[in-house]
C-alpha cells in the first residue's frame, strides 16, 4: 500500500486525512426532533448488519494459521543471532576482535579467544545470554566482518535459554555452507547495496 498520503499530517486536499463532518448540535426542539427522525429512519443499525453479513458472504478470510503458516518477516528483523562463515574457505568470519562484546549494552556477550598454531586468532567460546539480550542489534552493526548477525528465528521458546546461545548453535554448520544454504544477511549492519559506488577516496591533503 502506498503510505505516502498518510505521511503528511497536515490536513489539506492532497492528504488522505480529512475533517469528519460533524453537524452542530440541534438547539431548538424542532431541530432535535428532525435529528431524531433522521437518525431513526436512516437505518444505521441495518447498515451495520449488512456490512458484517457482506463480509461473511465474501468469506475473505485473513487468518494466518500460525504454526502451519507463517508470515514473512522483514530482512531487518532482529531475532536470535547467527555466526556466519566465509563462503570460500569455510573459516569462521569472526576474528575475535571483541567489539561486539564491548558494545553490547546488556553486557550479555561473552567470548574467549586464543592464538592457534598458525598464529591466527581463534574464537574458542562465544555465547550470548539471551535472557539479557534486548535484541538491539548493536553487535551486528559493530561487527567489522559481518560475522555476528541477527537471524530470522523468532520462535525462541525452549526448555533452556542455553539452547540458542552456544557457539555451536549459532555458527553455520559446515555442511550447510557447502550446500550453499548460508544466507547472507541483508539486515542490520549489513553492507547496503551498491556500496562500492558510494565509496570515495579520502583526500590525502586538506
Amino acid at each position, binding site marked *: 500500500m502506498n503510505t505516502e498520503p498518510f505521511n503528511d499530517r497536515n490536513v489539506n486536499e492532497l492528504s488522505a486525512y480529512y475533517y469528519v463532518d460533524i453537524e452542530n448540535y440541534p438547539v431548538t426542539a424542532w431541530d432535535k426532533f428532525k435529528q431524531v427522525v433522521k437518525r431513526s429512519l436512516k437505518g444505521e443499525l441495518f447498515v*451495520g*448488519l449488512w456490512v458484517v453479513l457482506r463480509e*461473511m458472504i465474501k468469506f475473505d478470510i485473513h487468518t494466518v494459521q500460525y504454526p502451519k503458516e507463517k508470515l514473512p518477516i522483514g530482512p531487518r528483523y532482529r531475532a536470535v543471532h547467527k555466526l556466519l562463515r566465509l563462503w570460500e574457505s569455510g573459516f569462521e568470519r569472526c576474528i575475535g576482535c571483541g567489539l561486539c562484546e564491548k558494545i553490547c549494552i546488556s553486557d550479555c556477550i561473552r567470548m574467549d579467544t586464543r592464538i592457534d598454531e598458525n598464529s591466527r586468532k581463534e574464537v574458542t567460546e562465544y555465547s550470548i545470554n539471551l535472557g539479557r539480550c534486548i535484541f538491539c542489534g548493536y553487535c551486528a552493526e559493530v561487527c567489522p566482518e559481518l560475522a555476528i548477525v541477527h537471524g530470522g528465528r523468532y520462535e525462541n521458546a525452549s526448555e533452556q535459554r542455553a539452547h540458542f546461545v552456544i557457539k555451536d548453535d549459532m555458527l553455520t554448520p559446515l555442511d550447510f555452507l557447502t550446500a550453499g544454504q548460508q544466507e547472507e544477511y541483508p539486515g542490520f549492519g549489513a553492507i547496503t547495496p551498491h556500496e562500492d559506488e558510494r565509496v570515495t577516496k579520502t583526500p590525502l591533503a586538506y
Partner: protein
Amino acid sequence: MDGAFIIETIVKIVVILLVFSALSGFGTYVERKVLAFMQRRLGPMHVGPYGLLQVAADGIKLFTKEDIIPQNVVKPIFKIAPVITAATAFMAAAAIPFWPQFTAFGYTVHPIVSDINVGILYVMAMMAIGLYGPLLGGMASANKWSLLSAARSAAVFISYEVITGLALLAPLMMVGSLSLIDINNYQIGGISHWIAVSQPVAFILFWIAAFAETGRTPFHLVANDHEIIDGFGTEYSGMRWGLFFIGEYANMFFISFVMAIVFLGGYGDGTIAGALGLLLKVSFFFFFFLWTRAAWPDVRPDQLMRLCWKVLMPIAVVNVVITGVVMMLTRGNG
C-alpha cells in the same frame, strides 16, 4: 395417569435435556464461527475437522476444572445460583412444542412435555425466574463486578418482563388462548395468518425484549466484558460457570422457539415441511442473536432503561389498546 404416560414424559424430558444441552454447546461453536467469519477470521480450527470438536474440548475443560468457591462468598447461594439459571431455562422448555405431533411405530408422539393451557405464561414465568440465577449468584459472590451485574440483571430483566408481557398481550387477545399449541393452530393458514403480519409492532417489541431477556449484545449489560468483567460469572469457575453458560444458550434457543411459534406461525399445519420451517425460523432467530453481536454496539444501562420505560412500554400499551379497539369494532360484541 398410567405408566406409559409417565415413561413417555420422562423420555421426552431426557431427550429435550440432552438435545438442548448439546445444542447449547454446539451453539457456542456456531457463535464463534459466525462471529469469526463476520470479522474475517476463521474461528476455532484446530480441534477436530474445522474445529468441530472444540465443544468437546471445552466440555472436558469445564468438567475437569477445579471448582473454586472463594472465601467470602455466601456459600449455599453461590453454589445454587448457576443451577437456577440452567434449571429454569430447561423448565421453560416443558411447555414449548418443538415439533408437530407425529406417529412413529403406531404410536402418536406429542413432542411437548406438557401442553398446559397457560403455556406461554408458564414459559415467560420460568424465564423470569431465571433472573434469580444472575441476581443471587452476583450478590453472593462478594465481588464488586458481580454485585453491579446482579443489580443490572434485576433492573433489566424486571423491566423487560413488562415489555414481553405487554407485547404478548395483543396477540393473546386475538388468539384467546395461552397454550402455545393453540397459538400455533391459530396461524395455520399460511403467511398471511401469521401474527407477525397482523401484529408487527408486538413482534418487534417482543424481539427487542428477547435480547434483554437473554442478555445478548445490544443489551449485554449483565455480563458486559469491558465494564464488569464477566458480571455475575466473575467468581465462578468450572462447571458452575458452565451451567450459567448452558442456561444462557438454552434460553436463546427457547426464546427463539417462542418467537417462531407465537409470531411466525410455528410449525404451521404440522407437516414435515412446516416442522422444518419451524427449525428454519428458529435458526434464523438464533443467527440473528449472533449477527447483532457482530454488528451492534452495546447501549448504556440508563439508555436501556429509558428505552424500556419511555419508548417501548408506551408503544406496547398503545398497541394493546389499538388491538382491543379494532377487535371490538370488527367483532361486534363477540
